[in-house]
């Protein structure tokens, strides 16, 4: 089976060591790692953000060769920052930067999927961070991209919307020629929703495999300095074992 997304020798100097990564169609891959381990850099390198080295192909095509008017169908990227300082209307923000053939009906449909109907006419800079998050997620999902790169999509969301978003991502992947790569910190959500888990540390992927198996392995303790306990995770020792 050939990979839907093939990234070879990706690197961002000082932030991401040369990395190969292949993503299969229909899979939700979770990227976990401590702060500063290179999760965002890996997403950037695949999304051709910040002039990365290496090659990326999505369904056989180099995204850099696809013009902005159609790129949104190929890959869609959610930035970790939810700051939008400009006084734009919520509905218009979701429609911004979409491929030319994304219809107004599709925008409306995506807005209502994320419970944003009542906010559609409000100014973005006056919404709460969580509401703005949902809006930006709706923007990313509206174009039905082949590859979704989501940087901490469930941060700022309340528990209900965290579940709804991840359920929705799963349903989008069902039988579709699509892959989702999500960077996040919630290990339990990763266990529950991911098909595949990547653990990053110091700019490298240090473990790659089935979530439940990896979460039970020594990698978690080595990378995060935590161990499983009856009540969830806890620090493996009073001092940070990594230091």
């Amino acid at each position, binding site marked *: 089976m050939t990979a839907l997304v093939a990234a070879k020798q990706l690197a961002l100097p000082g932030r991401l060591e040369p990395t190969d990564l292949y993503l299969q169609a229909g899979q939700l891959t979770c990227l976990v790692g401590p702060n500063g381990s290179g999760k965002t850099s890996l997403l*950037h390198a695949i*999304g*051709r*953000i*910040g002039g990365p080295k290496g090659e990326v192909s999505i369904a056989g095509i180099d*995204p*850099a060769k*696809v*013009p*902005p008017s159609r*790129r*949104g169908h190929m*890959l*869609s*990227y959610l*930035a970790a*920052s939810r*700051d*939008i*300082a*400009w*006084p*734009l*209307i919520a509905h*218009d*923000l979701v429609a*911004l*930067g979409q491929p030319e053939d994304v219809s107004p009906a599709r925008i409306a449909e995506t807005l209502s999927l994320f419970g944003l109907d009542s906010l559609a006419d409000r*100014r973005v800079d*006056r919404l709460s961070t969580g509401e703005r998050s949902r809006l930006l997620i709706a*923007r990313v999902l509206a174009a039905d991209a082949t590859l979704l*790169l989501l940087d901490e999509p469930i941060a700022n969301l309340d528990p209900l919307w965290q579940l709804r978003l991840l359920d929705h991502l799963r349903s989008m992947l069902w039988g579709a020629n699509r892959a989702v790569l999500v960077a996040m910190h919630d290990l339990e959500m990763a266990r529950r929703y991911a098909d595949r888990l990547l653990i990053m540390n110091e700019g490298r992927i240090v473990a790659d495999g089935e979530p439940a198996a990896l979460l039970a392995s020594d990698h978690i303790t080595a990378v995060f300095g935590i161990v499983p306990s009856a009540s969830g995770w806890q620090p493996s020792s009073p001092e940070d074992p990594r230091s």
Partner: protein
Amino acid sequence: MKQWTPLLLVAVLAALAVSLALPWAPLAPLWQRDPALAQAIIVELRLPRALLALFYGAMLGASGAAIQAMFANPLASPDLTGSTSGAALGAVVAAYLFGFASPFALAFGAVAGALGALGLLLLLAGPKAETATFLLAGIAISALAGALTTLALALAPSPFAFYDAYQWLMGSLIDRSLGQAAFAAIPATLAIVLLLRFAGPLDTMVLGEEVMQSLGHKIGRLRLWVVCLTALGVGACVAVCGAVGFIGLVAPVFARRIVRGHPGRAILPAALIGALLLVSADLLTRSAPIGRSLPLGVITALLGAPFFLWLVAHMRWSLSR
């Protein structure tokens, strides 16, 4: 937006017609007596002035909107980024070296000054500065350019050179030829038309640089284009008419009301509103009841500064809600 553009266009053309016709009192009897002379007054005296107001205003409006979109900052404008004062400094230095009669030297100096100021701002404040950093850097650059301009005035080679430079600095559209008007209008038109091509990408600047790059936009190239085009257009206009403030700040604020806040799409209406504002301001300079016309730069500053204060107060108020 679709209904507004023709409306604005009609308003601009009407203001232009009024600007050509007023003052009517000396013109009407002359038209009876010597139509050729009346026509010469309109074509050679009034038309350059009206056209300069039109193109300079449009350039300031469009570049204000483009700079605000590029910095994702609704308080940016050619004056606050120091490009107007940079252009003025460049032109004064060029004028001392080559004389005020040499339009090429003036234009070259002004464009170089504007480019220098914008480049320095990008260097000082960084490409994605916060409002405060950005405004402080802009104020610092404006102050530096202003101080250097004053120094240049103090070192004027002769009292005549000082007077020429001082009067030119206050901004004036009077006594310019059609050739000079073309000298400002052609680069300004070129700059506005090219800026309009970037309206779409400038809209998406709202989403942040990372998302823009993921969409395939080349941020560095976009910035360079906007900086060079605004410096070219504003520089050419400053070279002919001197520094005129605040239009670049005020016009986009109104323009965005028409385009639901989209920063890039505001470029066209901002150009039209800028033209309307400057043609109207020029009409005001002529109708002051003091027997002589007022400096244009003073009028726009007197009207624009209170507006800027209102804008800051309004932003504080809306942020505190």
